[in-house]
């Protein structure tokens, strides 16, 4: 067990401590930088900029000294390496972008910097966000802090591991088919993917444009609310950005529900449980943990309602046709001409393209490019791509039917707890099937959260997924916050082997 220290403080608590001058940003930043070094074995980071971070921290302390304030001022964070940053290389977890330096910062990065956060560096992820275990990173593995022989989940595995191991109070992530929710579940932390359009995609290296969303991984709903509030809001540089201003999600947490009381903060909240989310294939340990968590929700005043999402299984082929199709096009820009990997040996332009792309991309990325190219190609578009987009509409409509009868939908994040490293790397299709619970909300563009709800097999964390209607992040955060006010799953920390001092 580690000595108690600043690393135990979440975003909200750390913000209060900094504001009270109990410690400085330089102190906490320096402490966390040391922890990254001490826990290098976890493989959470791809690059850490020690000097830059300490300079930012010193600047935050200086600004505080002259009267600047704010809940995120001086708070250390790091970014999933899908967000471009000027101050660090951006690789997207791929050899294709080894050493790449962006001349601009992602909007989300800019906004968090403006809010006063201190960026330590970039976090590991599956290559181009394609994967569910971070094993597809071209650089190294990331290990689950709860059991270093297991995956942290993906694609935001580095972000989840860093937060779970208390190397950071919060990290940014991206979620296209579950890449925030699933690693949050596997690592026992809280994660939120907001409604499509709430966070700007400008500066987020594109995987699947109609599905990608930026979000937060932290150790509580309150912390997520603080960080999401600074990240979100309309960006004129992103044509798919929702024309809504940034929201103060944290302030909304304090507001009670109509008819609620201290004992029953979730009074009146209807939680829908789709029967398709509790199939036979759901591992017994996971189901047990979730049922207990849902019972707790009911004790807090919520009503559990049976609902249906009949096309849940279809979301797998629908997602795995649409996402690769968009990805195959988004990744065409990686051609070795203007940036990124260019092969050393080539005879002409076409061989330069082929060699650069074949050397730069890993196996999963190539597989998805192939699928995507195929489904868009002449003769197959109607049967595959168009059909998938129509089913996507039907899946979105199914959710709307549910939301006539409930306020949030709850269920598992994944069918099992985190699996051992290497166990599923040869079976891409098995990996795809495990996404069944997170894909539907992604296809519809709905907001989703994963909150720690207990433990399952081998003592591994189990996350409860909450899905809300469009722009109902506030409802999700509130429900999660209330649950976390009455339970302590989210405060559990992994028994990390602390390095000797």
């Amino acid at each position, binding site marked *: 067990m580690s000595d108690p220290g600043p690393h135990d403080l979440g975003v909200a608590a750390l913000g209060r401590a900094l504001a009270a001058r109990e410690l400085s940003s330089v102190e906490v930043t320096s402490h966390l930088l040391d922890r990254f070094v001490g826990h290098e074995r976890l493989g959470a980071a791809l690059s850490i900029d020690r000097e830059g971070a300490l300079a930012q921290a010193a600047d935050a302390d200086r600004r505080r000294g002259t009267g600047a304030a704010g809940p995120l001022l001086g708070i250390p964070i790091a970014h999933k390496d899908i967000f471009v940053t000027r101050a660090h290389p951006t690789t997207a977890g791929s050899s294709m972008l080894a*050493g*790449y*330096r962006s*001349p601009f910062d992602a909007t989300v990065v800019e906004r968090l910097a403006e809010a006063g956060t201190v960026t330590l560096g970039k976090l590991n992820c599956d290559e181009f966000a394609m994967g569910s275990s971070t094993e597809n990173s071209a650089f190294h593995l990331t290990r689950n802090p709860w059991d270093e022989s297991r995956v942290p989940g993906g694609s935001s595995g580095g972000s989840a591991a860093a937060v779970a191991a208390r190397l950071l109070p919060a990290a940014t992530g991206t979620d296209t088919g579950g890449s925030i929710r699933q690693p949050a579940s596997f690592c026992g932390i809280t994660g939120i993917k907001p409604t*499509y*359009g709430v966070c700007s995609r400008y500066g987020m290296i594109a995987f699947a444009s*109609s599905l990608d969303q930026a979000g937060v991984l932290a150790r509580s709903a309150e912390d997520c609310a603080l960080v999401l509030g600074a990240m979100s809001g309309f960006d004129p540089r992103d*044509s*798919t950005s*929702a*024309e809504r201003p940034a929201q103060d999600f944290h302030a909304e947490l304090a507001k009670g529900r109509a008819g609620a009381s201290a004992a029953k903060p979730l009074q009146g909240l209807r939680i829908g449980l789709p029967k398709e989310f509790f199939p036979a294939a759901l591992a017994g340990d996971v189901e047990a943990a979730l049922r207990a968590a849902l019972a707790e929700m009911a004790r807090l005043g919520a009503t559990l309602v049976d609902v249906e999402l009949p096309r849940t*299984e*279809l979301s*797998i*082929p629908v997602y*795995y046709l649409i996402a690769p199709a968009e990805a*195959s096009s988004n990744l065409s820009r990686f*051609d*070795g*001409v*203007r*940036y*990124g990997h*260019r092969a050393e040996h080539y*005879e*002409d*332009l*076409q061989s*330069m393209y*082929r*060699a650069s*792309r*074949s050397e730069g991309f890993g196996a999963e990325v*190539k*597989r998805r*490019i*192939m*699928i995507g*190219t*195929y489904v868009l*190609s002449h003769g197959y578009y109607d*049967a595959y791509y*168009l*059909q*998938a*987009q*129509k*089913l*996507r*509409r*039907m899946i*979105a409509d199914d959710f709307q039917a549910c939301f006539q009868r409930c306020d949030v939908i709850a269920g598992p994040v994944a069918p099992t707890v985190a699996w051992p490293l290497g166990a599923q790397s040869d079976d*891409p*299709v098995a990996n*795809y*099937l495990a996404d069944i619970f997170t894909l539907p909300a992604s*296809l*519809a*563009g709905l907001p989703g959260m994963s909150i720690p709800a207990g433990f399952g097999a081998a003592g591994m964390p189990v996350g409860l997924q909450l899905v809300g209607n469009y*722009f109902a992040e506030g409802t999700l955060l509130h429900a999660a916050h209330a649950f976390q006010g009455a339970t302590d799953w989210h405060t559990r920390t992994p028994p990390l082997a602390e390095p000797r001092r």
Partner: protein
Amino acid sequence: MALTPFDVRRIAELARLDLGADEQARMLDQLNAFFRIVEQMSAVETSGVEPLYTPLAAVQEAHLRLRPDEVTEVVDRDANQQSAPATRDGLYLVPKVIE
């Protein structure tokens, strides 16, 4: 709809990917395993359904936002080219293209 080795070669060419013989064979198997899952999707009746190309359209009619016609970019060529593999005098170099 099973793919053939010819399909794999054709798609790889379209995507500018070089796949070795082993890779092609593995890819063929993996793609076919994947497309077996896809089959269930093909059977579903969807006539009359509008495709949902972006979730924005699920909420309401999403329309393209237009910006005014103004020059707003000051281009920093050096910064933009700091990761370029081959340049000369600000131009990107590629092997000569034959028309």
